[in-house]
């Protein structure tokens, strides 16, 4: 197997005062891989994700990204401007709460079009056409293009947020509990959508979830976190079907069978 990792993380540590949120985390993410980070609330998953995505500065360690535009970059040593460009072009970030990832005061079309403008698209008609295509791909009626997300249901907002992130063909997408807080039927639709998009666009992704069913459906690999440390990692079905660590065994044994 050849090639080089898309993301190389080494000895990443983040503290809040005396509390260690994540400690000495390291891994390589390869192109096309979807990595799941699982664990209970407070295990450090979201802090880790924020440090990976450059939204939070770690106390120690490094995150090296193989940028399509500029080669290997150290995410936490980039200038603010270059990091923002990266997050708007080659990366995506899907928040649990779509209101944090969308601009609630502008139309659905503008929400999708914004990232196209960030990558240099200027032709209004083309932006509008691409935005319409993406509404269709995330199963939102096309006549909602000019409506604001304030008028959308929770599931529609989440699908719009996904479209907003994927329209610029990012290489790497970070997702924080993308189906958290949604009804089960709405969740199934979003999972199916994400699964198809990840597969067809050959995306690489890091997905934080506490739902092992979501992890099984969407990820290739898992890291299990407890108390800020990675206690187990490996192929998703191996970690879930043959868990080695006491904490992973407890998590897997805690699922209610459907």
């Amino acid at each position: 197997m050849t090639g080089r990792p898309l993301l190389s993380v080494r000895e990443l540590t983040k503290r809040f005062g005396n509390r260690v949120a994540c400690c000495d985390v390291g891994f390589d993410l390869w192109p096309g891989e979807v990595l799941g980070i699982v664990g209970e609330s407070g295990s450090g998953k979201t802090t880790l994700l924020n440090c990976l995505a450059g939204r939070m500065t770690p106390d120690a360690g490094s995150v090296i990204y193989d940028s399509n535009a500029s080669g290997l970059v150290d995410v936490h040593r980039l200038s603010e401007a270059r990091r923002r460009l990266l997050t708007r072009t080659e990366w995506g970030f899907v928040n649990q709460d779509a209101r944090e990832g969308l601009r609630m005061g502008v139309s659905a079309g503008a929400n999708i079009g914004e990232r196209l403008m960030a990558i240099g698209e200027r032709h209004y008609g083309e932006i509008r056409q691409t935005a319409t295509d993406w509404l269709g791909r995330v199963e939102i009626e096309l006549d909602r293009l000019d409506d604001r997300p304030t008028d959308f249901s929770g599931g529609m907002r989440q699908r719009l947020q996904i479209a907003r992130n994927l329209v610029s063909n990012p290489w790497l997408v970070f997702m924080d509990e993308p189906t958290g807080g949604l009804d089960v039927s709405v969740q199934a639709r979003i999972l199916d959508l994400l699964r198809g998009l990840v597969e067809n666009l050959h995306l690489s992704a890091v997905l934080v979830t506490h739902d092992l069913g979501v992890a099984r459906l969407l990820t290739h690999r898992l890291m299990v976190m407890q108390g800020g440390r990675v206690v187990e990692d490996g192929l998703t079905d191996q970690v879930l079907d043959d868990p080695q660590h006491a904490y992973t065994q407890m998590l897997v044994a805690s699922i209610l069978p459907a």
Partner: protein
Amino acid sequence: MPPDPTQPVLRVSHLSKSFVVHAQGGLALPVLRDVSLAVSPGECVALVGRSGAGKSTLLRCLYGNYRADAGSIRVRHRNDNVELAGAEPRVTLDVRRRTLGFVSQFLRVIPRVPAIDVVAEPALRLGATETEARRRAEFLLGVLGIPPRLWLLPPATFSGGEQQRVNIARSLIVDYPILLLDEPTASLDEGNRAGVVELINQRRDAGTAIVGIFHDAAVRDAVATRIHDVVPPGAQP
């Protein structure tokens, strides 16, 4: 280049596997001890042993679904010999994508995805066109007796036997050089069982190396070229 039929494409050496249950104070349950097995193209090896002897565990170790504690599992993959015991996830996934197929007893249902797409997916992942993958999926579903009115429905509501046949179709849509079969005919009636036996024999005769668990003696006799006894560690001399 077809594989050399005299050379094993799957070679298991001194494989051991225990389950350690932390909730039981770290209780260790040894399931496999020092298992060795080699399978060549065109062979179908039936794993035989009493219930609980470790047949399913062995099959799952071969697929990388269970972690081997010790020993080696080498497969012929992209004209190379690849070690699966302790392999990186991306290596195991690549071996599964191209070389190693697995038919489990039950279909893991994906919400909302129609049966035909469930079946076509492995072919699409290997670069088949949408049309080609669908054509092969329709052919397999037809041969396995799934009526066309079900093809566009998600298999969640199918019967156990229908789900199992969708599962078989999904695993046969790619010509994997190695196939692992865990009770592929368990919940099928006689007519459908014969169809599955026929498909397995076609693959075997075309040079696929097969390892399987076949509870039904008639099915085993029809497909197996060789028996491998699986003996639980406690019963070994």
